[in-house]
């Protein structure tokens, strides 16, 4: 269920818009933040808020990589696998992450802390190899830096 507060905030944002549909992605992001991922309920609520058919909203949730239709961990790690990061060791970085977390790409750790996903070039090729953690960029990574980062995130989550 949406909190009254969030519903009011979203309605206020949409109110007065000549075309409420233009806010659909914003609304989906807000609901995703609220529920952790886009549940069936969230998709239905988004559709109702912006006045679109549910199926039209599903066309978006299945299209955009940053909209999650399944549960994800507290930290979503997107590993860039495009060509510049590839040149600079994306593969060993990715292998290192999978090994440290004990999961494959696309999976979430049992403690619900980390999800690993591939991502296309994130526009930080000058700092390759790069990853995103909850959309925040970390670049010029080495296995050591990754270990430190994972450690920091684990501590932060406690």
């Amino acid at each position: 269920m949406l909190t009254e507060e969030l519903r009011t905030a979203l309605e206020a944002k949409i109110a007065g818009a000549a075309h409420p549909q233009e806010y659909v992605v914003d609304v989906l992001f807000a609901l995703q933040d609220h529920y952790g991922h886009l549940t069936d309920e969230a998709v239905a609520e988004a559709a109702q808020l912006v006045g679109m058919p549910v199926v039209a909203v599903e066309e978006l949730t299945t299209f955009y990589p940053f909209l999650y239709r399944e549960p994800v961990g507290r930290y979503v790690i997107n590993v860039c696998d495009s060509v510049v990061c590839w040149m600079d060791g994306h593969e060993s970085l990715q292998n290192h992450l999978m090994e440290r977390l004990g999961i494959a790409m696309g999976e979430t750790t049992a403690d619900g802390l980390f999800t690993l996903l591939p991502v296309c070039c994130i526009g930080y090729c000058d700092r390759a190899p790069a990853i995103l953690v909850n959309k925040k960029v970390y670049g010029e990574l080495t296995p050591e830096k990754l270990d430190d980062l994972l450690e920091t995130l684990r501590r932060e989550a406690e």
Partner: protein
Amino acid sequence: MTTTYPQILFQNRHADRIATLEEYAASGGYEALRQMIAGGDRAQVQAAIQEATLLGRGGAAFPMGIKLSTVAADAPFPRYLVCNADEMEPGTFKDRVLLHADPHQLIEGMVLTGFAIQAAKGIIFIRPEYENAARILEREVALARQAGYLGEKILGSDFSFEIDVHRSGGRYICGEVTAQLNALMGKRPNPQQPPPYPTESGLWGRPTVIQNVETLSCVPHIVRNGAQWFKDLALTESGAGTKLFAVSGHVNRPGCYELPMGVPLSEIIEEHAGGMRPGSEFKACLPGGASTQFLTRQFYDIPMDFDSLKKAGHRLGTGAIMIFDHKTCMVAATLNLMDFFARESCGWCTPCREGLPYIRDLLQRIERGEGEAAFIPMLEEMSKYLWNAYCAFAPGAVSPLQGLLTYFRDEVEEHITAHRCPFQASGSGALDNRSQTD
């Protein structure tokens, strides 16, 4: 010694922070807007842009002045201006650097362009990975509004113009104009073949102009300093203005450099990007993002402007230069690029949706040493089909493949005859081959 050139778009760039509105204004910012608003002559803005031969910096190099002229005088209202800050072309990061350096030139460029076409609203379409830049823009837009450069009755005139920031959900195809318009309208972002052209019927069926961040950022400088000044910035007769080159790959100083149009590729690599990394020799580069063809050693001194590359059968694209050294397997590099395009295909039309995975599969087999001689003509045939796809995504997608087959055919053949990748150990290189100088 590194040759230095006038910095226009980066004149207020600081290493660690963005330029403030005050700094931008002190360097002459918002003067062009004052002049144009005071003079009230909308046609003057478009004329200056057209005369300066400002070519679109988003990849297609379409002249902005001509695009503006396609908004008919009697076109309906409200009209829209969209700033394309999607920047999802692999290797491209110039707009990100520009937005973090001096965002007010984009804001002024948008207001001026909005003024020229009598638009009511400007929308900045930005990718989710650039959340920082989106926040910077929202903050600076509010400051510009407070200062009277934006909003109701700008600088006391009867022109009103708003700017909104729209966050995308991701996907490379959203950078294509018509897909972007669909995305903005909350639809699944599949492209829509013209006609009608967006300048006739775009967002919500209204006239809409879409320009890249860098293109719009050039506008205030052109209006203030004149078309001739802009043309004279280039080193070549065929070029105009400066260009932001985003350089990455096997060089010592990857980064974004503002250089005159027409600067030789070799100078960019050797001087500005600090040369090849120790132990690396230049093998090839993609000159303008993932959807351009490989430039090989024979083009090492080519002047980097749209026209020179076009004459050589290439494209400057976004000016994102990705540099590969002699240890890179070009089959593997192309495979990575094809994997990107296969994943990012929007799926709307068959040649692209089905053709790219097919190409990827053939390349993968070649890379694994399972290739056959017949694969080469198959790849050639397939890439021809992609030119018949619904939008410009597909011809762009096969550009690196066509480059591979033109310039590195012997390497492809070697994979096939030796039943293995001759570069085995390299390619997706070890982490430690990265230089420590940055």
